[in-house]
């Protein structure tokens, strides 16, 4: 991202549980995984021991495309957590991932870059302290790199 991420060592880290550990273990290998219910086939995120749609206990980990669209976003000028104060302003977004789930993440995009709800985004792995986090970046309209 930017050199401001040198502050990342002080960011609050993820707090995996016994159920969510596979997500974070995969993330450290730069694999973005989510659960899918074996009974109703719906995506489940964040990780759970039971499907919230049908209460099945049979959930299987799948690898996500990491592509999606911006459901909404905000430019955080005054973050709620003091560790992020020096990073501000930065963009937080709700991402509708193609695989059928929504998560909150940060965009690597400059806050002044004219983002819009509905813009397509793709996954980019960024180190934050000792962890790799799934952040997102806009996909240019021409599809180029």
């Amino acid at each position: 991202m930017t050199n401001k991420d040198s502050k990342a060592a002080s960011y609050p880290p993820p707090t995996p549980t016994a159920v969510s550990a596979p997500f974070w273990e995969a993330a450290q290998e730069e694999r973005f995984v989510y659960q899918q219910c074996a009974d109703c086939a719906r995506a489940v995120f964040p990780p759970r021991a039971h499907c919230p749609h049908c209460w099945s206990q049979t959930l299987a980990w799948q690898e996500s495309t990491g592509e999606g669209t911006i459901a909404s976003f905000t430019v955080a000028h005054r973050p709620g957590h003091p560790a992020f104060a020096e990073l501000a302003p930065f963009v937080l977004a709700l991402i509708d991932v193609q695989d059928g789930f929504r998560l909150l993440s940060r965009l690597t995009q400059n806050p002044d870059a004219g983002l819009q709800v509905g813009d397509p985004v793709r996954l980019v792995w960024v180190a934050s302290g000792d962890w790799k986090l799934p952040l997102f970046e806009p996909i240019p309209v021409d599809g180029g790199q």
Partner: protein
Amino acid sequence: MSAGAIVGVGELAPQRYSAGVTTLSMLATAAIEATHDAGLSRGDIDGLLVGPQVGETPQHVPATVAEYLGLQPTMANVVDLGGATAAGMAWRAAAAIQAGMCQTVLCVLGNINERGRVPRSPNRNPIREFDVPFGASGANTSYAFLAQRHMARYGTTSAQLATAVVAQRENAQLNPKAIFHGTPLTVDDVLNSPFVVEPLRLLEIVMPCAGAAAFIVTSPERARDLRHRPVMISGAGEKITHRAMSQAPSLTSGPLKAAIASAYRQSGTGPADMDMLQLYDCYSIVIALTLEDAGVCPVGESGPWMVENDLTWRGPQPLNTHGGQLSFGQADLAGGMSHIVEAVHQLRHQAGERQIADARTALVTGNGATLSEATALVLQREDV
């Protein structure tokens, strides 16, 4: 039809920071005022509903409050619905009375706000795991997502949202208890205040403060023998849908829609019957979304509607006549109770300079977390 009546209210004036007081002492002040307002005494209270975040104790909260007040209730409970707690207490109190567990319930909320106080205890829920590491912490971010989405979908503008904030500030100028009493506000003031989380600015976001509030619920029959004209709980509704914003079923509507519909249905009323709207207002966007969820204006049209209608106490669409939490103050969970206290004052025709003419019916809403926990009440003067 009513399952219960509100017969007493008490409320401390919110203060930005507290010092030298305890939460228990503030709760007690509000509770005693509400009990005396009802014309009751300590021995009449046999039910107790409290919030989960009393400064002095995270556990055994009802017992701690009961002991402090010298009460020995036959029904006590914690109601943990964030900003929706106060309205959620009202119907729970009435239901406990109907079930025969008690006759008269004290509902009380409040908290200290000490300068430099550290945040509450750490937790390990999915928000801590999946939101905070990315830089999203606290409610501001979530409400900004709602505002951005409403703007993108319906063309709602910051100036439109500011209009409702300004109308409430005007109401606060007639309320000496309001934390922003004596501080008028213009739309330009709101639009010139700094961004906190775009598109939301500082003056669209509620300011934490200290304080407490209480109300007393009893049966409709018993209520008629007390000091004031009873305020009947003629309809109630509640719905809880999610906790983390990423799990919200909708980004432009909330569970308030179902909760308000239930309150309308139980009371046999609709939006056109409301003489006032006392709507939970932690952020400007929540007012807009609630107006739509309440059917007061068409979906997507709250922006222009708020500009076209006079939302002050003197207009035909009075909104948050005490100033709302944005101008009266949000004293922790007591902020959500301020809407009930104001409705009771208005329905008793005791609202002083800001009294609405012939006020008979009020819609009160509560909103917890991020449009996650929703409660709604229709309150009516007994003679309706």
